[in-house]
């Protein structure tokens, strides 16, 4: 598992790789919150294209990121979502809170699923 954060302007990209489960969730949350706190972005992009497995701990991770972004008025976009992770995330209805893009991005979006805009975007 690894969390790599890169920023350009007021856009912060967080690349999460490996397995997102209870064992790794706290580390991911901590590293992500530290990066958001340091960058204070207007937009937070969570790139999940390197995630090899996700269980419901991933829901908690994304909700935590969403709450932190809401506190600073940042929009959240989740990109590169693998099919297995997407099946977990949609169980919790997270597409109502943030924008999702599949692994193939705009070339093959999931109709009706990843066109929602985050409620906190300004």
């Amino acid at each position, binding site marked *: 598992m690894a969390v790599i954060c890169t920023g350009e302007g007021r856009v912060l990209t967080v690349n999460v790789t490996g397995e997102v489960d*209870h064992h790794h969730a706290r580390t991911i949350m901590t590293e992500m919150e530290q990066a958001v706190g340091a960058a204070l972005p207007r937009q937070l992009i969570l790139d999940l294209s390197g995630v090899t*497995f996700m269980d419901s701990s991933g829901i908690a991770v994304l909700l935590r990121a969403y709450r932190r972004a809401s506190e600073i008025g940042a929009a959240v976009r989740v990109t590169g979502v693998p099919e297995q992770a997407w099946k977990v995330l949609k169980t*919790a209805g997270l597409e109502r809170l943030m924008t999702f893009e599949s692994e193939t991005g705009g070339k093959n979006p999931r109709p009706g699923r990843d066109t929602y805009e985050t409620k906190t975007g300004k």
Partner: protein
Amino acid sequence: MRQKPVNEVVMTFLSRSANEGFARTAAACFVAQLDPTLDEVNDVKTAVSEAVTNAIVHAYPQTLGKITLRLRLFGDQTVEILVKDNGVGIEDVDRAREPLYTTGNEERSGMGFTIMESFMDRVRVRSTPGKGTMVVLSKQIARRVGLPV
């Protein structure tokens, strides 16, 4: 009459979070005998991860305890996965199975049982406060066309 399993594996491990990955990978390897699709394997892995994580987080909150994982295959292509602990038990199983209900820490979302129910055909939970909890997950793997019966 209850079928007899055609194959069975039983393993016991400590309630360390590092064993979550081990447990779901073991279940995925075991179910591979049925030539499942990637989706079916991922469903089993995810459900096992939820059940084992529940045991690790809730059954032994202040100590390490033992978790038993029993994997069974039946002739009708059904895989049955039992996750059993001897921990604190669940006071109200119906409430624990409600979406978003959790007594766990911040890494838990309260969606564990909901995901188990969504990804598997059947989820049975039996728990006795002070004695432990047993979760039994079942899923029938579709028979692939062209394979010998």
